[in-house]
């Protein structure tokens, strides 16, 4: 168990600022997700915490101790790589036993600890097999077992689910979360998949261009994005961002519903929505169109759940509404959140 603190951390590759001055502190037992598009510096940040990459500037503290100059093996961490990085010439047993042997753990205790780790992930049957004889999901479990076997104080996971197919990924995500709850080890998890981030993280760090854009619980970053990048990155489809004359206005596609579909009429902002196209996804319908009289030139996507039984005809104008507090305002220049600047006429 350990806390992790990162102070003014910077990594330059030539002229590129891969990580550009990051401050973070991770609590004991926390599941922290680093989320961002590819090239945002999240993997570099993780690799610096692991000690695989040396920072250009700044400090890294694990468990209160500055580890800037410590090699990876002195940092009491375990890492799971995107490719799993299993040792291809060793059996599953030897793969899991490797960190124990490398750290000079007492020989007699190794078999028992390997078996316990394997049992944790249900891979006891495969102990004699080579990694190439395993499926993707099984390999991923071996990688996790190899990571937990020596009881590290910090887990670093670099997109460990991205090589699994979609069905398996949902299952593995659930298992991973339960497992982390059970052992309670501080975990840093890198992903570009917002669904993984929302589902797994106690807190999410949204990154872009080597900088932290927002840190918060999944609900905070989803409901209260601090800038247009976070608003546009999270959610599928993402937040509608409509550029007005003095600010950018945003609201979530699933919060903008037909006026009559809202449970209460209180605090609603009704707007005329002109529908251009309808997409039926089964669980929801996506409506593409524009706000007829307020932002006629900006595209708007609306997600209407299947529970709303209304017919929508392309080309028609309907009365939709969104709760006033669901509307977010962003500065036109900086993209940061600003105070509300109502554009509608109060009724």
């Amino acid at each position, binding site marked *: 168990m350990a806390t992790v603190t990162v102070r003014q951390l910077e990594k330059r590759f030539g002229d590129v600022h891969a990580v550009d001055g990051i401050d973070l502190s991770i609590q004991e037992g926390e599941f922290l997700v680093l989320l961002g598009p590819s090239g945002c510096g999240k993997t570099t940040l993780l690799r610096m915490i692991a*000690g695989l990459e040396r920072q250009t500037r700044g400090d890294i503290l694990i468990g209160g101790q500055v580890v800037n100059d410590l090699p990876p*093996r002195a940092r009491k961490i375990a890492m799971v790589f995107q490719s799993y990085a299993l040792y291809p010439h060793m059996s599953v047993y030897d793969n899991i036993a490797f960190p124990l042997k490398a750290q000079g753990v007492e020989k007699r205790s190794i078999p028992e600890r390997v078996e316990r780790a394997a049992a944790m992930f249900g891979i006891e049957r495969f102990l004699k097999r080579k990694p190439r004889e395993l499926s993707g999901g099984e390999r991923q479990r071996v990688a996790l077992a190899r990571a937990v076997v020596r009881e590290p104080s910090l887990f670093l996971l670099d997109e460990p689910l991205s090589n699994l197919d979609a069905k398996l990924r949902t299952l593995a995500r659930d298992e991973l979360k339960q497992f982390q709850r059970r052992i309670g080890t501080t975990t840093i998890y890198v992903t570009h998949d917002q669904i993984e981030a929302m589902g797994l993280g106690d807190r999410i760090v949204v990154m872009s261009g080597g900088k932290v854009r927002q840190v918060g619980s999944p609900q905070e970053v989803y409901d209260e994005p601090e800038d247009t990048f976070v608003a546009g990155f999270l959610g599928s489809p993402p937040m509608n961002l409509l550029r007005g004359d003095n600010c950018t206005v945003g609201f979530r596609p699933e919060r903008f519903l037909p006026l009559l579909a809202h449970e209460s009429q209180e605090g609603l902002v009704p707007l005329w929505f002109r529908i251009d196209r309808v997409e039926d996804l089964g669980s929801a319908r996506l409506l593409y169109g524009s706000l007829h009289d307020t932002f006629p030139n900006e595209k708007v996507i609306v997600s209407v759940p299947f529970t709303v039984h209304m017919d929508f005809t392309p080309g028609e104008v309907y009365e939709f509404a969104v709760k006033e507090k669901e509307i977010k305002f962003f500065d036109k220049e900086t993209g940061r959140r600003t105070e509300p600047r109502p554009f509608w006429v109060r009724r």
Partner: protein
Amino acid sequence: MKPAASPPTDPARRAGSGGALADNEKWLGRVMMAPAILYIAALVGLPLLLALYYSVSNVTVGSAGWPSYVGLSNFRHAFGNPTFIRAVWNTIFFAVVSMAIVMVLGTILALSLLKDFRGKWFVRLLILLPWVAPISLGTIGWLWMFDSVYSVINWTAQYFGIFGKRTWPVWLGQPTLAMASVITVQVWRLLPLATVILLGGLSSIPKDIQEAALVDGASVLRRYVQITEPLMRPIALVALLFGLIFSFTDMIVIYVLTRGGPFDTTQVLATLAFFTGIDGGDLGGGAAIALFLLPVLAACVILILRFARKTEVT
């Protein structure tokens, strides 16, 4: 209504006869393989058959007409000759010791070339130079360096007071030193190829795996012994196989430097076969000596290739 489509024309016929060949995978493959097969048949297959034939005949360089069959007497004669037995042991010693040194030095060089440092390209160039230089010219250079009078090694060592004036080693004239000298040159010559092959093997090990071992807490030695070495073993075997076969069969270094001397202490099968068959005129005897290595090498190749496949990893 459109008119019915005309029957599809054969694309090969449309493209003419050249096109027909280019579209016919079966024949195109054979035609493209043919030069290589002809080349091997003419320059390897035919001489091999000729050597087999010569080894059981009494042919000499002066023979006119068909030589007569003499059974295995050429082989019996060779086995009865102490120089031949000595050459067999010399060949094995020369090849095995050269390759042992080459593999160790090649691995060290490959490991250091994997790291990034200033002037890496220059070091790579230096290491590759012996391979691009013509072997015979390079070896003649060594001949001068080992010369009993002009040896740059001896003069330099004398200047620094390592050798006294009367205690110069005669590199190619003293039995132990002669073997050491030819092995040195053979190592110099084979090292570049081995290094390049080993470097290829090293770079093919995924970086993730090395980093995983690093995070797992493995020391430098453990990472090499348990991760790097096993993963590059198949490729290292290729380098070893090539080097062994070169050393077992090639005669140029020894021919240029010592001609097998002094007192046959550097005589190997390849030079002995040449001296017996070409210089001595006894083609049959030379063929028998040359063929002695064939089954040994074939067994060697099969063994190593089988081992390489077993250790191959995905």
